[in-house]
C-alpha cells in the first residue's frame, strides 16, 4: 500500500465533499464496501452512470421533440434525480431540482438551460470519480473506502 496514494485518495475525497460534488451518501456507500463487495462503490457509480445515460437521453428527447410536455419532463427528471441521490451526486442533484422548478413553471428555456447544466455536472463528476477510483485502486484495497470516514 502506498501511503501517498491512499493519502491522495483521501484528500481527493475530502475535496469532492467539500466542494459539494459528493455528499454523505457517498460515504455511506464506502461504508457498505466490505470483503464481499470490495469494489462496491465503484460498481455503484458504474451502474449509476450506465443507467443515467439512458435517463438523460429520455429527457433530451423530450426536450427536443415536439411540444414540450412538462409533466413528462418533470417525471423523467425526478427519476434522474433519484438516481443521482444514490451515489451522493450533490451538484447534479441540485441542478435537477432547478430543472424541475422550471418544469413546474413551464419554462422551456429554463429547462433547456438547466438541462445542459445537469449534463455538465454529470460529466464533470464522472471524470473526477474516475480519477478517484484510479487512485483508490493504486492505493491498494485497504485504502479504497470501506469505512474511511472523511467528514
Amino acid at each position: 500500500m502506498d501511503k501517498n496514494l491512499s493519502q491522495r485518495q483521501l484528500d481527493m475525497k475530502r475535496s469532492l465533499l467539500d466542494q459539494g460534488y459528493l455528499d454523505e451518501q457517498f460515504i455511506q456507500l464506502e461504508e457498505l464496501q466490505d470483503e464481499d463487495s470490495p469494489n462496491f462503490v465503484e460498481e455503484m457509480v458504474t451502474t449509476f452512470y450506465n443507467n443515467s445515460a439512458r435517463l438523460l437521453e429520455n429527457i433530451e428527447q423530450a426536450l427536443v421533440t415536439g411540444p414540450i410536455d412538462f409533466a413528462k419532463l418533470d417525471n423523467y427528471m425526478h427519476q434522474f434525480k433519484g438516481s443521482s441521490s444514490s451515489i451522493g451526486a450533490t451538484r447534479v442533484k441540485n441542478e435537477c431540482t432547478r430543472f424541475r422548478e422550471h418544469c413546474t413553471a413551464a419554462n422551456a428555456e429554463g429547462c433547456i438551460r438547466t438541462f445542459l447544466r445537469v449534463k455538465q455536472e454529470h460529466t464533470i463528476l464522472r471524470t473526477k470519480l474516475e480519477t478517484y477510483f484510479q487512485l483508490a485502486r493504486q492505493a491498494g484495497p485497504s485504502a479504497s473506502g470501506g469505512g474511511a470516514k472523511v467528514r
Partner: protein
Amino acid sequence: MSFSAPLMENGFSSPRNESFPAGLRVLVVDDDPTWLKILEKMLKKCSYEVTTCGLAREALKLLRERKDGYDIVISDVNMPDMDGFKLLEHVGLEMDLPVLMMSVDGETSRVMKGVQHGACDYLLKPIRMKELRNIWQHVFRKKIHEIRDIESHDSFDGIQISINGSDLSDDGHMFCGEDLTSVRKRKEFENKHDDVGDHSSPKKHRVVWSVDLHQKFVKAVNQIGFDSKYEVGPKKILDLMNVPWLTRENVASHLQKYRLYLSRLQKENDLKASFGGIKLSDLPSKDPAGSFGVQSSISGNQNDVPNGRYQYSGENFFAQDLDTKNHEGDLKRVVSESTDTKSTLTADLPDPQETRSSQMSFDHSFASLDSEVNYTAIPAQYSWSEAPQFKEEHKPLLQLEDGFSQLPPSGLHHIQIDPLQSASSITSGLSVTGREICGPEKIKPLYAQFNGNHVSLLSPKESAIDSFPVQSKSHMVKHQSFEPISTAISGMKPQGFNLSCITDFESCQRNLISATDTTFAPFNEDLTVCWLQGDCHSMNFELPNVEFTDYTDPGFIAEFPIYLCDTLTSDNECPFDTPEYPIVDQGLFLS
C-alpha cells in the same frame, strides 16, 4: 424467518424468533438499478433477507406467489409500470403487509398521499442505514395490532370462559374442545387454525372467514338480494349459508365489514375517478369475435397492472342483456361511453331490481343474473383513464341493494361483480346475446349494473379493479366468483386486506379458472383486490356472474390463482398473512 403462529404467543417473543429482526424478509421494489443494489446491500447488512425487484408488477407477482413469503415491502413511489401508491394499496389489501415508501421527493403532499394510501412510513432518499435497521418495527407493530384487533373482536376483555371438551354455545355451536382460558394467548394464531365455533356469548372466538366461508356468505347475500332487495339480514344470511357452527353474530359482523369495505371502495373509486381515470392496462384485444367487442383501448398505461385490470379482451364484455329497461339504458350508456377509447368502466347501475333476465355476458362473462347485477358490458379494454367522464356517467354504479345501501353514489364505483348467487338467470354461458351492447362504444361502465349489487367499478386506480371477479364461464361462477368478491368487500379495511376475501376469491377464482378457459383469472384477481380496497359498500352483491370470459390477458390468469391460493394457505399459518381481518372476527376457522 417466518412469523407464524408461535410467534404470536406474546408478540414476538416466541423462542422461534429470538433472532428477530434478523432474517426479516424484505421485498424491495425500485426501478432504479443503482438504488436497488444499494438497498439490497444495506438491508443485507442489517441481516435481513432481501429480495429485489425492478418492477411493481413483478413485485406483486412475487408477493402473490408467496403470500407469506415476505414480512415487509419497501417500494419507491415513482415507478414506470405502476404508481407506487397503487402498489402500496394492493399490497395492503391483498397481503396486508407493511409497506414503506421511498422517494427522493419529500414534499408534504406526497408524503401525505403515501400515508393515506396506507404506507407505514415514507423514507426520503438517500436512505440511511439506521433508517433501514429499524424497519422491523413496522412488522412488529402490525402484529400487535392484529392481536389487539382479534382480541377486541372477541370481546375478550374480562371474559374468561373455560370450556373443556365440547361445549355448546348458546347458539348451539359446538366448541371444539379448547380450553379457553388459554385461548387468549393462542388465539391469535390459533384462530386461524381452529375449528372453533362460537362460544357462548360474550366471548366469541374469532371466526376466520375462509374463502369458502366467505363465498357462502356472498352467495347467501346475493340470494337474499335477489329476492328481497333490501332485506339482507344476518339471520337470513346465516340460514342460507347453512354453516352449523356459525353464529348470527358472526355473520352480522362480517356483513358489516363487508359493507364498509364496499363503501370504502366506492369512495375511493369516486376519488379516483375524479382524478383522471382509471387506467386499465392495455389489453390486447384478442377476443375472438366476441359478441361484444368492446374494445376501448385501454389506455396504455399499464400502470396498474393489478389495478383495474379490467382486461377484457376486447369483446368480451358482456352484452348485457338488459331486459330491464334500466339496464338497457345503462348499458347503452355504458356502451357508448366505452367507445371512447378510454372509457372508464363505470356502469351505472340501473335499478337493479328489474327482472333480471338481463344477462350480461360478455362472451361469457357477466351473465347478468337476474339479479341485480347488471353488468354493462365491460369493454375489453377499458381505460380507466376516463375517470371524469366516468364519473358523471355512472353514478351509482353500485346499487347497493338490500341493505347495503350505503353506497354513496359516486362516479366510479367499484364494480363488484357479485357472483350472482341467485343466479337464477345467470346462465353461464350467457353469452352476449343479441342485446349485447354493441361494441365498444357501448360499454362503458364495466359492470354496470348490478342490480344494486355492489357493482363497483373497480377503478383501476384502485386496486380494486383488480379484483374484478370476472367469471369466465358463468357456470362456475355463478356464485362463486363473486363470492369472494363480496367477501372481500365486506368490511375490508382498505388496507387490511381481508384475507378472507382473498381466500374466497381465491376459491372463486379457482373455480373460475378451472371452469373457464379465459384469461379471466387475472381479472378476478384484480377484482378481488379491488374490493378490498375500496370502500366497503355494503353492497348487496348480487352481481350476476359476471363473466369475463374473454379475458385474454394471460397475465391475469397467471396471477390470479396464485395469490389466491397463497392467501388461502397463508391464512392458516401466518399471522402476517391473515390480515387483520377485521371482518373475520368470529373465529371461524378456516375451512
